[in-house]
């Protein structure tokens, strides 16, 4: 297994998982087969922009002249820390704003959900001519502010607490790789400001049961020296929930499904050492009760090495086990 001790290589995957909102809220997940080195912290800002004009009302694709284009800006701080070479923690704290280009509805803004992931490399071996590694990840996200969840599609998030479990495998052959993962996301119930709501029946309560979510992700591309260039296909399926009825407003417990196609690029600078640039984009190619969003984002990351003996010098080495 080739490990890339490169700045931020392992971190900072963004927007691959939109937390199921019409206006995509972003949460970092770690979804690649690379690890951060022990006692190294990779941290930096990300900026993202996402917008859609068409959305799926249930399975019916439509536009809404009273919303126009719904857009989301996201600013976040992300980081990864290597507890050991096989165990990393990742975090993300995003600030999100939304607005609609038409109609009268008020845009939203606020600190969204903090997420924390633990990533463990459980298996790492040369198989054939390539390297196979297997990972187990657990993640949690918690809303950091009391933002309004029940104002879709302009809400900045769904305000559910989540726990995620992910299994992932990565195979690298020469300069090319493929990574596949599956994730189960448990979502807690939420409370909304209304005291009753209708889904497919009436609920005389302000508590909303949020269906869990299953996601699959496959990504492949070039990974060598200081460049990563990859394409990915991502699918999320809400395990339950209901469709938006004709000309109705969306609701947090809708059945929000999406299939996205995207790309992710990283370039690591030689000078200054430890600095890298990330650019990523994706497009929803199929969906249900979500916007057909196009998302782009970019980030700048830096590695801090807390190892006492060899400060920062290892960040540009490529090591082979």
């Amino acid at each position, binding site marked *: 297994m080739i490990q890339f001790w490169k700045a931020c290589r392992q971190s900072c995957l963004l927007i691959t998982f939109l937390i199921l909102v019409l206006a995509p809220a972003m949460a970092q997940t770690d979804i690649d087969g690379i690890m951060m080195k022990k006692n190294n912290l990779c941290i930096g800002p990300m900026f993202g922009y996402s917008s859609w004009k068409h959305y799926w009302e249930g399975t019916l694709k439509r536009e809404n002249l009273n919303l126009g284009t719904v857009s989301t800006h996201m600013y976040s701080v992300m980081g990864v820390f290597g507890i050991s070479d096989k165990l990393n923690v990742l975090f993300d704290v995003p600030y999100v704003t939304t607005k609609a280009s038409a109609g009268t509805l008020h845009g939203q803004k606020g600190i969204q959900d903090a997420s*924390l992931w633990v990533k463990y490399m459980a298996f790492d071996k040369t198989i054939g001519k390539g390297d196979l590694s297997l990972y187990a990840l*657990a993640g*949690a996200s918690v809303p950091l502010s009391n933002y*309004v969840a029940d104002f879709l599609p302009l809400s900045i998030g769904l305000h559910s607490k989540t726990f995620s479990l992910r299994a992932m495998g990565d195979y690298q052959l020469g300069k090319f790789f493929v990574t596949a993962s599956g994730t189960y996301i448990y979502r807690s119930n939420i409370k909304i400001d209304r005291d009753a709501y209708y889904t497919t029946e*009436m609920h*005389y309560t302000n*508590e909303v049961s949020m269906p869990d979510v299953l996601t699959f992700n496959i990504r492949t591309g070039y990974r060598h020296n200081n460049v990563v260039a990859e394409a990915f296909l991502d699918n999320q399926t809400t395990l339950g929930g209901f469709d938006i009825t004709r*000309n109705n407003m969306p609701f947090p417990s809708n059945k929000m499904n999406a299939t996205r196609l995207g790309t992710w690029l990283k370039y690591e600078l030689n000078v200054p050492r430890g600095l890298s640039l990330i650019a990523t984009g994706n497009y929803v190619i199929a969906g249900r009760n979500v916007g057909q969003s196009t998302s782009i984002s970019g980030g700048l990351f830096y590695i801090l090495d807390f190892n006492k003996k060899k400060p920062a010098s290892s960040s540009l080495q490529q090591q082979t086990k």
Partner: protein
Amino acid sequence: MKKLLYPAIALLVIASAVVPFACSKSISGRTDDAPALQPDKTDIDAGSWKPILLTSASEFAVAAPVATTTPEYIAQMNEIKSWQASLSDDEKNIVKYWSAGAILRWNEILRQLVAKHNLPPYQNDDGTYPFPSANNPLAYPQFPFANPPYAARAYAYVSAAQYDALVAAFYYKKLYNRPAPYKVDATINVLIPTSDLPSYPSEDAVVEGAAVEMLKLLFPGDQDYIQQKAEEHKRARIIAGANVRSDIEAGEALGKAVAQKFVTRARGDRAGAAAGTQTDWTKLETDCIAKGETPWYSLETPKRPPMLPMFGKVKAFLFDSLTAISLRPGPPPLTASSKMKDETEEIYNLTKDDSREHYRIVHFWADGVGTSTPPGHWDAIAAEDFIKKNYSEVRWARNMALLNMSLMDAAIVCWDTKYYYFNPRPSQMNPKIKTLTGVPNFPSYVSGHSTFSGAAATILSYIVPERASAYAAMAQEASLSRMLAGIHYRADCETGLDCGKHVGDYAVQRAKTDGAGN
């Protein structure tokens, strides 16, 4: 650092594995476990209470019941016993659900139907809008579009019909005085609280029959669901040992007969013409311009015809049409006046401060698309208070009818006022005003929420006086919510609340003289 981190991570991993299975996602509604109705008093004399449409409690004849000693009656008792011999959990749940009260449950069912149907139709390709058709309720757009005026009228008719039907039922209960099955045969296993109230005709079946008959008119596309609930309700009473089949049959027939009188009224109350025509919509605009005022325009794209502009002409329950017009408030500030400019500026400034507390207030009271509407919200508030009062079914019905007639008549006066002045919304006067909820598609002055809330708080304060200050505070907050949302001016809200109180006073006057006492 490591010493702290490892246990923390271990904890996180365990938590993520355990918590999903430990936490239950099931939610329960506030009235799911409402206690079985156990009235403080039977209201056995309710047959003498003043009905709304019936000329007298005995207007519709109910045949004398068979004696409890006859083979026919004994056969009906055996029906109860055979149900009770093996009760499934499902059957027990049905009994529990319906034992909370017939008026309560049918009101909840109606609120659900309203919420399901409270959806504005999507536009046609040419930018016009389709209208639902009562003759083809399942075609898009489904009938009805249960918007606030439609909903207010639906709640009022169902409640009023149920009340009149119960007044008639109680008249016959006292007249025939046939005891409940559990009084006749002590071996019956009663699944509900017992009562001295005679059981013929069944008050539950009366309520169910009246609801079913009214809902054929109001929600003609939902008959399968309504009939299923009706069958469940009747079965629950037999399973519970509360009624024999002849109690149910007589009650249902009476409920339907009384409701027919309300159906006839509804067909002639001018609501069917409330949507108006293009000629009407144009005239509202040109008349307003002729007065030198800026007329209301739809803020939707494409522009949607105004909601039910002729609803102000619907026949009210609590007063005649001249009184309805006399309740219309004086004019709003002229659109070109500095007062209007100031009021618009006030709303603009409020929406710039879209604090979390503002959203809480706005969204709690918004009751917009896909909800049971403001009248439904007030029904929920009332119902949850009435549950604690241990009313008899007939008193439940009387109080709900008073509330819902107030709400319907508030809608009539409010809609008359809206289309008389045809005043623009704040976002029309200043497009920079971004709203915290959707802008309703009808003129601004006066606020519907304020009028509904003023009326509801007034009659509820008479019915449950110990909650008067709470109702007043709720009405005030509901009214304020429309300013905070950026969709109404101060004048709309303050005048609307006041106007609603005047409507509510008519219900209070009726309540004082209907013979029910309080």
